[in-house]
């Protein structure tokens, strides 16, 4: 086993754009579930809408970078309104059902062959990175040190991705210490109590849904910058990874989603390296590498269960403030 390589890959995940994307999606989900108590099981759909909302205008109309980003944001706001208007007046469970169903619906829509011209159907989309690459002010070449050696484009994706994560975290921090945050935390616990004090609960839930959804769609954009758009990436599995990350770090915390995403990806990378290495060197000869890949995700499921049972507040959470009685 090449431990140097395994560790190098694992450490590289700390600042990878994928980790940033997952962290940002988890920050959005934290606004939904952690602070406001909205059971959103369709964060993958917001990421999908961000990805396609950015890629399609860029490819089809040659939209400049800001316009493509704006398209993605508007699409996710509309999606949030579409989900929220019928469900936010109802009990929390209904939002959960509707979001999980809607996430599958949008994934099937972009996969359908009738839309191959626009969405690329099952093959997805590529060739949308030009405008983002052109915005890169960094000099050409490969630089960095140790495992953190990347080319100019890869550095630019990381800088922008983590910059947005920091921006989102600051935004959440400012909001949650404000009277606005007090109201959504009240709604999380008992919306009738908040309603009886003259607050428009529906409007606050909608604001939280839109804000977390927009963060999810920006995460979707960051997610596709190092790769192509693949509809198969946006299954419910993605949503549950985001949930795992959020719960791991602590649902209603500022640093929880960031540290959660880092741990999640470093652990996935480490276990992959170790398992593959063990298989190659014959320790686990009965497993194929494909099977080993699946085992990692079984472990994710196990970790999620253990987390919910033994440390529901996550790493950073305050147990008095957080528990699972939604």
């Amino acid at each position, binding site marked *: 086993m090449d431990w140097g390589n395994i560790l190098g890959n694992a450490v590289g995940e700390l600042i990878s754009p994928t980790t940033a994307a997952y962290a940002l999606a988890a920050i959005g989900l934290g606004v939904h579930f952690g602070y406001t108590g909205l059971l959103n099981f369709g964060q993958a759909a917001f990421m999908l809408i961000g990805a396609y909302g950015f890629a399609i205008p860029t490819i089809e109309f040659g939209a400049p970078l800001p316009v493509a980003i704006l398209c993605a944001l508007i699409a996710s706001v509309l999606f949030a309104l579409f989900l929220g208007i019928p469900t936010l007046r109802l009990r929390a469970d209904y939002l959960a059902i509707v979001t999980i169903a809607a996430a599958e619906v949008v994934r099937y829509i972009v996969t359908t062959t009738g839309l191959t011209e626009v969405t690329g159907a099952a093959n997805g989309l590529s060739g949308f990175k030009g405008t983002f690459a052109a915005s890169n002010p960094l000099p050409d070449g490969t630089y960095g040190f140790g495992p953190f050696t990347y080319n100019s484009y890869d550095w630019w994706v990381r800088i922008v991705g983590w910059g947005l994560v920091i921006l989102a975290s600051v935004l959440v921090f400012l909001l949650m210490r404000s009277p606005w945050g*007090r109201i959504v935390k009240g709604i999380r616990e008992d919306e009738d109590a908040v309603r*009886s004090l*003259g607050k428009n609960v529906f409007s606050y839930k909608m604001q939280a849904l839109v804000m977390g959804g927009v963060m999810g769609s920006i995460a979707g954009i960051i997610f596709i910058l190092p790769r192509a758009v693949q509809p198969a990436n946006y299954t419910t599995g993605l949503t549950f990874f985001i949930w795992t990350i959020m719960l791991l770090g602590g649902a209603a915390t500022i640093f929880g989603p960031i540290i959660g995403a880092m741990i999640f990806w470093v652990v996935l990378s480490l276990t992959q390296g170790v398992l593959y290495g063990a298989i190659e060197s014959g320790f686990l000869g009965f497993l194929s590498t494909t099977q080993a890949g699946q085992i990692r995700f079984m472990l994710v499921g196990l970790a999620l269960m253990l987390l919910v049972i033994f440390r529901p507040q996550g790493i950073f959470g305050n147990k008095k403030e957080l528990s699972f009685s939604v």
Partner: protein
Amino acid sequence: MSSDNAAGGTTAPAIPSTHPLVTGTVGPGCAKVDPIVVADGVSRTFGGLTAVDVAHLEIPRGKITALIGPNGAGKTTMFNLLTGFDKPNTGTWNFNGRSLAGVPAFKVARAGMVRTFQLTKSLGRLTVLQNMLLGATKQPGENIFTALVRPLWKSREAEITIKADELLARFKLDAKREDYAASLSGGQRKLLEMARALMSDPELIMLDEPMAGVNPALTQSLLGHIKNLKSDGTSVLFVEHDMHMVTHISDWVIVMAEGKVVAEGPPETVMKDPAVIDAYLGAHHDTDLGDLTGGPNLVEDARAAAEEVHEHKHHKEDKS
């Protein structure tokens, strides 16, 4: 027991038939001199059950009004309807002359009619102070954009914190200021919920069973708080089962049974109303009256309490 009239029937009230709060004669649905809430034809059915069917109801301004009645009389449903937490099948009502039918609950609260709940809704995972601040109005920081810039809401936050601290001191919760509300006792939560409702200076505060589950010592201080509300000019409407409390502090009593207002009057006379005796003992004398102390002796209790208050008059404890 002398009960000539069936519950829900038009009942001649006990003496006296006039009262300073009332224009005309005292009776179910009588017009008040200065009503703060006027309701007409409010009905609510759940499937085949008519929970509330109130033809006309007026609640006097600046007074403490008790809404009593046996379990299932529709008191809490009436509360929910008036405050927008439930939608009636028919009916209109207005508050301060402003129609509130079909108005969502948060707008009812903003209009100055704030309620508390039978099952206390203190927010356990917010601190006591945060609970209080949540009750305040006109905080610009409750807007998502203003919230981002602290200087825009800091001064208002300071004002409402002072106000919250005053109320907490008044309700003897100041020592618990920074604790999570979940750590409070049941009675303290009732106090917190009442104090929180007062943060918005409501014109009418509606208390749904403020005494339920509160120990006798705390009951005394709660009674004091409710009386203080009246002297501050706030109108109070409360649902209560404890007849002693009702007779001690209320200026006016409205009795509901099977969804209808069956009697109204000042506490010292309404308890003698045949319709009230009927409501409590007549149709349902063998049903469980829950946490009512004394069960079927309730009316006797109430009457005794009324006598206690006004012992200088009406010394005619009837044993017919």
